[in-house]
């Protein structure tokens, strides 16, 4: 049964790819769907790009097994969009074409800034992708009984097909379909759960308290060290606004106003989804039971599928499994296209070829880049079999928060900021996040040198300090003089290129 649903999703997405491929001929088509996406479509696509299988299956599982702490984890994923909405989205739309580096290039010396921004983008996307693919391999094995290797190759090949042939247009529609499926599945599950408690949340909470104790509804079961939780909160809050696969979505809409609309749509969907994770998690704890959840999978990833089976039988289980599959596909496709954009647009076209590459050459490199990124990720995911790579998501957010956000903020708000500051800030943020994770409990276990699982609490300030020192210790009048242009463009959209 589940196979049939999987096959339908594969078929529909491939048809979309075929349709999109006939509308993708220029680089603007390829990277940003020719800016043809409307605000609400982009909002749904952002939600589809952002809500990963880790959110859907993982958070439901964390809540089912650890209670309140799992929900606290959900909060940051939404509040982070306020930073995106109020600080980042519109200026980016007003000053860029395809990548974050486009904005920086207005005032900085192009080559070094583009090279470092591409490095940071590719690092973030790769970490995120490995985490997604490794998780996906495990999930598909649980849901369909397919081999880990086979699962990863199927997903990897599909994501490459979507991106190479359908570009951003196909990626966007895969994300929209996934978001609609995910919300439909989650709404039905929540409705069915609440119907068991006379549609009263209080009654559900009472039963949770009765069965698992009141402490299950209080913080402290999962996060023993409050600083860990604060550091993770900072990584989410500051990192979301620096995630390349989210930022590239703002270039797919025609105006800053549409970019703003799309964030609001995304916030409505993402917020509703994370609120419903409570119903999924507590519902699974009560209606499936922790013993059965742990028996199926130690980490609790099977909570939502088992809940679906308990409430709606085999068909519903098959549907929810297919939703999880679509969820994975949409996220990895978004990651491939943002990494390929950084490689082909920033590194190849502007650093190696000095901006002299022809249109057809650029789009060919973008396609080769997508295949390359896809194949490398597949190989890395195959090598990481049986490794616990969940921390790579936290690391991706930490790098985005420490390397990208300080530079975005200073470019927009600080006149003195210059090329040296941007390069120093990005490198400090990138390296400090990676080094701090290597010496953290994620990698070193109990004897770790750095006590926090997420490095953001230290690496974000380091990223800002790197950017400040790099700027103050250098002189670069060109960056200062061109600030006025970026400042006016970012805040008004005057002079926007089509």
């Amino acid at each position: 049964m589940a196979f049939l649903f999987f096959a339908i999703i594969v078929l529909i997405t491939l048809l979309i790819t075929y349709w999109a491929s006939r509308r993708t001929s220029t680089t603007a088509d390829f990277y940003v769907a020719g800016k043809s996406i409307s605000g609400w479509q982009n909002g749904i696509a952002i939600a589809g790009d952002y809500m990963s299988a880790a959110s859907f299956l993982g958070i439901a599982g964390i809540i089912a097994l650890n209670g309140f702490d799992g929900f606290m984890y959900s909060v940051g994923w939404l509040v982070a969009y306020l930073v995106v909405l109020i600080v980042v989205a519109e200026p980016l739309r007003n000053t860029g074409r395809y990548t974050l580096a486009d904005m920086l290039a207005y005032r900085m010396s192009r080559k070094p800034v583009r090279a470092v921004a591409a490095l940071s983008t590719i690092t973030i996307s790769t970490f995120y992708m490995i985490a997604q693919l490794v998780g996906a391999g495990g999930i598909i094995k649980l849901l369909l009984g397919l081999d880990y290797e086979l699962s990863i190759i199927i997903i990897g090949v599909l994501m490459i097909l979507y991106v190479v042939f359908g570009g951003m247009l196909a990626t966007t529609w895969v994300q929209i379909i996934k978001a609609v499926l995910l919300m439909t599945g989650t709404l039905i599950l929540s409705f069915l759960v609440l119907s068991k408690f006379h549609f009263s949340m209080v009654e559900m909470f009472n039963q949770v308290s009765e069965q698992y104790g009141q402490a299950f509804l209080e913080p402290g079961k999962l996060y023993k060290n409050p600083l860990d939780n604060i550091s993770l909160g900072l990584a989410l809050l500051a990192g979301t606004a620096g995630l390349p696969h989210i930022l590239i979505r703002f270039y797919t809409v025609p105006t800053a106003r549409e970019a703003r609309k799309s964030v609001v749509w995304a916030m409505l969907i993402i917020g509703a989804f994370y609120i419903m994770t409570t119903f999924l998690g507590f519902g699974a704890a009560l209606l499936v039971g922790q013993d059965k959840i742990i028996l199926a999978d130690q980490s609790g990833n099977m909570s939502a599928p088992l809940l679906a089976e308990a409430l709606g039988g085999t068909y519903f289980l098959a549907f929810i499994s297919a939703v999880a599959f679509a969820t994975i596909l949409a996220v990895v496709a978004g990651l491939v296209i943002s990494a390929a954009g950084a490689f082909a647009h920033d590194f190849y076209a502007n650093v190696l070829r000095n901006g002299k590459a022809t249109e057809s050459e650029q789009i060919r490199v973008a396609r080769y880049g997508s295949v390359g990124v896809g194949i490398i990720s597949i190989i890395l995911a195959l090598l990481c079999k049986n490794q616990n790579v969940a921390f790579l998501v936290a690391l991706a957010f930490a790098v985005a928060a420490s390397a990208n956000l300080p530079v975005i903020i200073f470019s927009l708000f600080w006149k003195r900021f210059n090329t040296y500051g941007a390069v120093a800030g990005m490198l400090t943020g990138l390296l400090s996040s990676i080094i701090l994770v290597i010496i953290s409990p994620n990698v070193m276990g109990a004897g770790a040198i750095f006590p926090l699982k997420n490095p953001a609490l230290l690496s974000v300030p380091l990223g800002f300090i790197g950017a400040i020192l790099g700027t103050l210790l250098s002189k670069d009048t060109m960056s200062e003089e061109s600030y006025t242009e970026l400042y006016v463009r970012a805040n008004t959209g005057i002079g926007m290129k089509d």
Partner: protein
Amino acid sequence: MELRHSNQWKKIARSSEFIMLMKRRRRFQIFSATFFVIYYFALPVLAGYTGLLNKKVFGAMNGIYLFALSQFFMAWIIAFIYVRHANQLDQTIEQMKKDLSKGALS
């Protein structure tokens, strides 16, 4: 609209319309960011260092869950207020663009 020379950008940046626009935009950004950052970090701080909100409010539903839930509504409300504010600023920007094409920016 071709604006090749940095002088033109400087002229816009010095115009009273633009200065007013930025004043309003910055004020909103600073106020809202201060508010939501404090509200957001209050959750892990209160949950991690105190048991203040563990008191039951409705049945077994306690203060800390309600506070976590309120974060979602806080985010939605601030987003809504921002959009209203930004839509007003859009009108100022549209006016600026019109003045600019007529060369009448003061």
